[in-house]
């Protein structure tokens, strides 16, 4: 297993370099450093001098990927790509293009992101599993039919619609929760109640159908028939036996997502004014702040790789037959 992990971490680093390169290429195909300078400086201050100065201060006056003028190894290292990427691997994010400290912002914003993401995730899993198991339990009855219909209906509606209707209904009309905002302490619950409910409902449809398929596959197997013939009640059969065996595909989708919870839900945070990492990323994209965007992409990729490695490890825990090598 240790060899396996080392190998995976090695691949992970290669992937991170590749992702970094790809983000870099994408970003600079759309923007040149001149454009970024102009956007950042803004308004009447934009003269060619100011743009040059801005670029020099941030190291954007170097060539993008290949510096033909420098000797030897410096051809590769005296470029924007190298200078800005190497620091990332040491998790030193430096300053954003507008001069703010990225590392500090990340640490400040992780809290609100987690506060929203974890309850949504845990409650969401619980609700989805119960819902899909119920559909399996009541298969071939009217309940299953209406359950599937409801799931398809929920799946077809855009998440944005839920947000807008939710805010309109619960905040504006019924005046039960604030429209948006955030604060620490006990008030947290009031601000997060609506986003959590909307987060669960918007994912319910698709995931319930997926889980239902997994469970139905298991339910058709021999060991389930054996369990029933032994006289076990239906809920024991489902919750104890089917669930455990259907766990593998479920694990794939949930454990991999776990680290990404840190990144926050971009749209949810924007609409509900939650100062998390998601809204930080969106702000940076709008402001064309490359330093922040690449940091967030790097962090996201690293977390995703960690998540996938964790998923593989969780397989060995869930299913003793699996050995990693």
């Amino acid at each position, binding site marked *: 297993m240790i060899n396996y992990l080392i190998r995976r971490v090695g691949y992970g680093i290669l992937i991170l370099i590749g992702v970094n390169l790809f983000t870099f290429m994408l970003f600079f195909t759309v923007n040149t450093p001149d*454009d970024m300078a*102009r*956007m950042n*400086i*803004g*308004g*009447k*201050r*934009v*003269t*060619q001098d*100011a743009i040059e*100065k801005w670029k*020099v*201060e*941030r*190291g954007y006056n170097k060539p993008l990927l290949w510096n033909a003028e420098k000797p030897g190894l410096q051809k590769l290292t005296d470029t924007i790509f190298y200078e800005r990427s190497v620091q990332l691997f040491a998790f030193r994010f430096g*300053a954003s293009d*507008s*001069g*703010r*400290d990225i590392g*500090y*912002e990340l640490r400040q914003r992780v809290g609100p992101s987690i506060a929203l993401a974890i309850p949504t995730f845990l409650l969401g899993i619980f609700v989805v599993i119960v819902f899909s198991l*119920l559909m399996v*339990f*009541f298969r071939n*009855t009217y*309940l299953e039919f209406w359950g599937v219909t409801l799931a398809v209906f929920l799946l077809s509606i855009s998440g944005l619609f839920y947000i*807008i209707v939710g*805010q309109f209904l619960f*905040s*504006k*009309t*019924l*005046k*039960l*929760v*604030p*429209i*948006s*905002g*955030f*604060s620490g302490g006990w*008030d947290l619950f*009031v*601000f997060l109640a609506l986003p959590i409910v909307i987060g669960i409902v918007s994912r319910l449809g698709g995931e319930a159908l997926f889980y239902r398929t997994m469970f139905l596959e298991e339910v058709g197997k021999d060991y389930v028939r054996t369990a029933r013939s032994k006289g076990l*009640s*239906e809920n024991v059969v489902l919750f104890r036996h089917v669930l455990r065996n259907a766990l593998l595909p479920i694990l794939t989708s949930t454990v991999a997502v776990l680290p990404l919870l840190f990144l926050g839900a971009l749209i949810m945070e*924007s*609409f509900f*004014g939650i*100062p998390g990492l998601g*809204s*930080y990323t969106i*702000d940076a994209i709008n*402001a064309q702040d490359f330093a922040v965007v690449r940091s967030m992409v790097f962090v996201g990729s690293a977390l995703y790789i960690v998540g996938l490695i964790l998923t593989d490890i969780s397989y060995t825990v869930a299913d003793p037959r699996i050995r990693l090598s």
Partner: protein
Amino acid sequence: MNHAGMAVRACRAALVALCCPAALTLSVALSGCDRVENNPHPSGSEKTNTMFVPFSQRSPKYLDPTSSYSNDETPFTYQVYEPPYGYHYLKRPYELIGRTAEAIARPRYLDKDGKDLPDDTPGDQIAETVFDIRIKPGIMFAPHPALAKNAQGEYVYHAMKREDVADKHKITDFPATGTRELTADDYVYAIRRLATPRIKSPSFSTMAEYIVGLKEYGEAIVETDKAMRRDMAPTDRDLPFLDFRKYPFAGAEALDKHTLRVRVKGKYPQFKYWLAMTFFSPIPWEAEKFYAQPGMAEKNLTLNYWPVGTGPYMLTEYVENRRHVLERNPNFHGETYPCEGEPGDKEKGYLADCGKPIPFADKVVFDIEKEGVPLQAKFLQGYYDSPAIERLDYGTSYIVAMGDDAKKDKEFKEKGIRLPTTIEANNWYLGFNWLDPVVGKGNTPEQAERNRKLRQALSIAIDWEEHIAIFERGQGVAAQGPLPPSLFGYRSDGPSAFNPVVYRKGPDGKPVRRSLDEAKKLLAEAGFPDGRDAVTGKPLVLNFDYLSAASPGTKAVLDWYTKQFAKIGVQLEVRATDYNRFQDKMAKGSVQIFFGGWLADYPDAENFLFMLYGPNAKALTGGNGENSANYQNPEFDRLYGQMKFLEDGPEKQKLVDQLIEIVQNDAVWSFGYFPTSAAAYQQWISNGKPTQIVRNHISYLRLDPELRARKLAEWNQPIWWPIPLILLALVGAILPAWFAWRRRERETAARTLATTGAAT
């Protein structure tokens, strides 16, 4: 278990299911009738003397007075900093008064030998103007760590090392604070700092032309700074303290502790307006030294985020893109609410607080609100006291919405929302690029005449009255010339109020737009009868360079423009790009027709007419000049050159009239309109007079927290009854399933019992 037993158990379960939500609702409802659930601010805060306003998009970028120039920064900079002059809050036309200055300084005119000249000397004979400004004694800075001194009189925080700053992220992390008196040297320091190469000051290029010695000083400081940073990498963030006390120059000096002298080249009457802008805020050297220490810049502990001033408020909280808080400055020297204004102010209640000490509000909290819909919703719920404290477009859009929708009208009126209107010094126009061969100047006198007729024809065709009616819902006034009504130089009986090229006098004396036939006639004289070139027969196609990318929102207005040109047979091609590209095109002078606007920096006719002055042409100044149409007219330039030296008076009025007549005849702009501006305030905010020129207006707003708390409770009573209903519906959906499950579980047992029971 027989059926009866099952039924009983089912009923019991249903009862429990019903009672729980009911009990929940009851308990919550009884817990407090005036409890609101949807307050985004800490509960109880609505009863305090705190104003809540939103800010949109993101945090203001520059709070450093040397570089701050953007509208969204002004609520902070003008409440914290005090330039020498300010504007009287109520008087219109706007009147300059002293803020830290005892009075508006009378300029002294000198000739090239330094001898005094009489006041009525013609402007071009004056070599230098001297402003001696008396600063009021006893003004203290707001408490700040940079000014903190220990018992021995040494500065507590001026010798910090990197480790000392490691755990500090905001200015309130420094426990000790201090203060001292404001002196003229602080203003001198600030003026010298305009030349700093480390920050770009938008005012520097203009000020370098006027303040004696500033241009050369700027070049010298660049060298000094370079020498200082010779051994540093350009990406180093900890720059050594550039102490401007060490580098004097002739244009600004402190004659004594409370007298500031500024020397200006030639005669520049508009200089007094610059002294009301935050570029001339006093900067204590201690703040610069404090912020220049190692490690401060990367913690965002700089003048850009934490200003140091003498104004009525100080910035105590700065959470980027989330919240900013201004709190009352305990050391504020004190000001009183004005007792006079313009006619009509008394009736509107603006003079009720005459003589009272300001600022009224203890705290102003700015929360971020990125989307327009939640912003308006929260404003209507009462959780914001104004939708935008520094802009007047929300109020106008609300008035428009009220006109469209009777329900909205009712809601706004019932909630007593105040929407005071004004016509501000703000215009929108359509410009013709003078450098363009078709609509511009023209290479020969005959071509010039034809082009002029073309522009005049188009000016008649573009129906701005219709534009205002459709797109601004009537909230605006069609412009007759480049000057808006609220400035000196605008005469309601002069050329500024009547454009004879585009209008004729109607039966009641009001301007009536000339007919399309006249426009077509002019078009024919221009060489394009019925919109086709008289020589080649090709249709006339003109290009409209729009300043933002085409989107569903702009489609209607772009279609409207196309229709206006089509009225006389001219085809209009819209070239819409994003704003960056548009600015590029303008800087290169490659546009043909464009849409532009201007918001006055200061209330002087010169600030609008300078947009038509030849040397300010955008294409000739690398995009820096404001003459976007690149208009060149020697006669205009000559008269402008005379006008700009004059103080407001009959002579200036005469020149302004002549200048306006010239541009009306040349029709280089289709003059567009002046939008109505309206502020929006809740009913518990008093003294909210709409203004875009007075930026330190927050101190004059008084709020009634009791009224606010009452209205919030009244408007935001939570409605709980749908919740138990939803729960009930869920229970109702599950109940049959539960029955089915129980039945299935007992089926085998029931069958077995039935067969064995039958057997025994």
